[in-house]
């Protein structure tokens, strides 16, 4: 740590030594023939696999899809005018702005924490382990974690458990997020009512019965609620009786409105008897055969309401890996949408990538923390500085070089982000989650087969990384 920025370069040292010995400061390559001979194989290899492709790619970026016809700046023009490629710039900006700073912050928190807890070695090992796994494996695991189906995705399962504990779902949940509606359940003698409830289409008076037919629920669901064959209700004086049943018979699909022998009742439905002014005259629950009875009913017309609580589905899962935008851009034109949307899948992928790299940040910052001069901090504490003050005014500035190293390293890492997008974003979100490196891969190495465009993207990526590399080199040289 103390050597960064203070040593002269090896070349300067050699020159100084040569001058001191009275030799020619320029060196002269004849003197170094031996070293050059040893360096040659490595240098040729380096030239072949880095310099030649660099030059070839730069050349290809001015040629067309098959790299045979010169098109000048055509590829660059296409990049900046196609909204599906502008999406990649936007995503790279999101990654660059959010990830390096977040991961450094988390690494700092972990680094400070790991100093003060007892099992710090075990803690550090667990946090660091994800780096060992391949990014592809991690991406696939996180894809399962964020799955839409609460039976598969842990995140949605956890939220669903909490949500169900607060407000339990009804016996017959209707998943409105997948297009189903409560109104769609109404079949015979039932019409939809406000607030996702159903009510009887006609009125009923005391001493009579009413039959309410519903569809859209499978026999399997009914068997789970203990429903049995529907039984036509008997009338009872001074009471309103009735039946709620599944008005669907596979053997007689066109026969609606009658209670057929193979049709099931709806067990456990919560009902309310409504007076003509809308006030409640009593509640009831259907039995296993779908029959209900409201006792002690006075004169007048009543309607039977099937309470909305029966159909509440609770939390059914958020599509964490979907391309829906967190910013309200749906009313904008295509280019503006491409540049300003923030797809939800980006946030999910950033979380997964944080899990992978937080350990690295923690280890580097932890090493930095360990090498801090404790006496200065002790002195500050003796002078009466509080913990937070010590941290903010003494530790942080001393850690600044380490933090910058972590930030810049992660910045370079994130600029070329590729494998986590390819493996974690589902097919339908790939377009919105696209990044420069992934677009370069798609255009160059898959069916799209456009070498010119892929090369142009590679050149742009190279140009974007240069400032970060220059910064890093400056820090090392001093």
């Amino acid at each position, binding site marked *: 740590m103390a050597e960064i920025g203070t040593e002269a370069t090896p070349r300067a040292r050699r020159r100084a030594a040569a001058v001191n010995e009275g030799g020619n400061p320029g060196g002269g390559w004849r003197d170094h023939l031996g070293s050059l001979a040893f360096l040659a194989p490595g240098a040729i290899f380096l030239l072949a696999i880095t310099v030649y492709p660099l030059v070839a790619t730069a050349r290809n970026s001015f040629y067309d899809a098959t790299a045979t016809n010169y098109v000048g700046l055509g590829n660059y023009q296409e990049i900046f005018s196609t909204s599906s490629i502008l999406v990649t710039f936007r995503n790279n900006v999101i990654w660059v702005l959010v990830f390096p700073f977040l991961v450094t912050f988390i690494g700092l928190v972990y680094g400070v924490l790991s100093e003060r807890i007892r099992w710090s070695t075990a803690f550090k090992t667990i946090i660091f382990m994800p780096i060992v796994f391949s990014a592809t494996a991690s991406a696939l695991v996180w894809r399962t974690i964020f799955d839409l189906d609460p039976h598969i995705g842990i995140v949605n399962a956890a939220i669903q458990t909490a949500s169900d504990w607060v407000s339990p779902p009804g016996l017959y949940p209707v998943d409105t997020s997948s297009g189903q509606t409560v109104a769609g359940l109404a079949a015979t003698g039932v019409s939809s009512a406000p607030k996702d409830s159903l009510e009887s289409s006609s009125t009923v008076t005391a001493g009579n019965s009413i039959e309410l037919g519903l569809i859209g629920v499978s026999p399997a669901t009914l068997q789970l609620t203990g429903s049995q064959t529907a039984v036509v209700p008997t009338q009872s004086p001074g009471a309103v009786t009735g039946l709620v049943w599944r008005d669907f018979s596979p053997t007689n699909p066109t026969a609606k409105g009658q209670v057929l022998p193979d049709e099931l009742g709806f067990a456990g439905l919560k009902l309310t008897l409504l007076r003509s002014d809308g006030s409640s005259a009593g509640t009831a629950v259907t039995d296993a055969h779908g029959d209900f009875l409201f006792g002690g009913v006075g004169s007048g017309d009543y309607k039977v309401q099937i309470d909305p609580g029966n159909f509440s589905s609770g939390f059914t899962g958020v599509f964490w890996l979907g391309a829906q935008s967190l910013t309200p851009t749906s009313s904008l034109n295509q280019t503006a949408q491409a540049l300003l949307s923030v797809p939800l899948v980006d946030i999910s992928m950033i979380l997964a990538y944080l899990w992978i790299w937080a350990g690295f940040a923690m280890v580097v910052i932890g090493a930095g923390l360990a090498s801090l001069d404790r006496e200065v901090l002790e002195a500050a504490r003796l002078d009466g500085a509080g913990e937070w003050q010590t941290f903010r005014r003494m530790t942080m500035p001393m850690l600044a070089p380490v933090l910058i190293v972590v930030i810049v390293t992660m910045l370079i890492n994130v600029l070329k982000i590729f494998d986590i997008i390819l493996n974690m974003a589902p097919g*339908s979100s790939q377009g919105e989650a696209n990044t420069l490196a992934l677009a370069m891969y798609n255009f160059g190495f898959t*069916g799209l087969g456009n070498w010119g465009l892929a090369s142009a993207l590679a050149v742009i990526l190279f140009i974007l990384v240069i400032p970060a590399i220059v910064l890093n080199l400056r820090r090392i040289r001093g």
Partner: protein
Amino acid sequence: MIGRKASTLGLGMLLAVAACGGGTTATNSPATGQNIGGSVNLWAEWSSSEQQAFKAALVPFTTQTGVTVNYTSKGSTISTALGSAIQGGAPPDVALVPDPGTVQTLAKQGSIKDLTSIVGSLSANYGDAWNQLVTANGKLYGVWFKGANKNTIWYNPAEFAAAGITTPPTTWEQVISDAATLKASGIAPFSLCTDIGWPVADFWQNIYLKTAGATAYNSLSTHATKWTDPTVTAAFTTFGQLVGQPSNLLGGLNGSLSNAYPACVDKVFPKSGASPQAAMVFEGDFVANEVKANSANYAPGTTGTGGAACSIDPAKTPCYNFFDFPAPAANSANQGAVQGAGDVAIMLKDTPQSEALVKYLAGPTGASIWATAGGFTSPNKTVPSSAYPDPVTQKDAQALVNATSFVFSLDDLQGTWEPMMWTDMLNFLKNPSNVTAIQATMDAQATAGLGH
């Protein structure tokens, strides 16, 4: 050393074989079955298990004629490899190519031989739709061997029975009304595969084929018809009748967008112990492989409700079956139009051995052997139904044989803008009312991608 003796022996054998096989009796045309000996070089795209099945199918040919078949698997790049080999002057004798476009191109170049004098018009072996695809200037250049049907909507017969649907739909309107019935019985009608968009494109292409017909379809493939054409709008509108209603799709829009292939098939034909969540899934006849891989208990249903054994009870026998992709009632003339894929044999060098092989491939024997092994259907009329291992595969083959017209998958012919087409299809799914803008985008992408 052992090596030296073996290599000398090997060289000797090689010379002997070469001396035997190099006859120039091109003027004789022996009938199939006559023992002529020699060898023939054959290229096709099949490898691993398909290669073994193909080799088993060729055994009677070698037994009857004594001709050794030197088979080389070229994988999916066979058309490109063939082009290079022809240019380089070393093509195989016979090749099986997976697209008729290659046959037409090579016929025009004069690189492949006219087969009319060798096998006749083959009208007794293949329907007109098939022969037309490999005929150029009135001459027949190809013999179809394998076919794949992408015209299939797979359904769970037990779910259909539970909804009281006794026969699968025969028109598009019936599909929509059956979907409503399935919803009423409490199951999601369709499990829509989305992935990166290719299953949605396949679905839409079938709708276009059934509404506009094979001629318009081929015209759209080559971009002679623009994507802004009213027939394209009509196809999107028809498609929207199904997918515009999220309740028709398992999980609605989000559920569909997270539905990749083959997970979408598992929702209709689940692994043993799970219950189906949807009643129908669309994709090509390769779905059957996924179904059987999920559980060995799956029984192929017969036409109709699928038989008494079918049940959605996870403890009982599940069944699978398909129905032909139906055309709207107004376009019933297009009902026989089939979209799919296939492999056709072409002859590059006219030798008695290659002629014998081509005649053999046009007959029923080879195809029947592979058909019995499974995973194979042929448009060849002479292949008996009994060769296929189950009623579902038989029905699949019948659809191919009886096709009134046959077209190849449109998206595979779009070259570099194919992935963009897939994304556009997904965008339509996300916003079915945005048809005009999507059509305009697709047309611009087609022009840029195809160059015209």
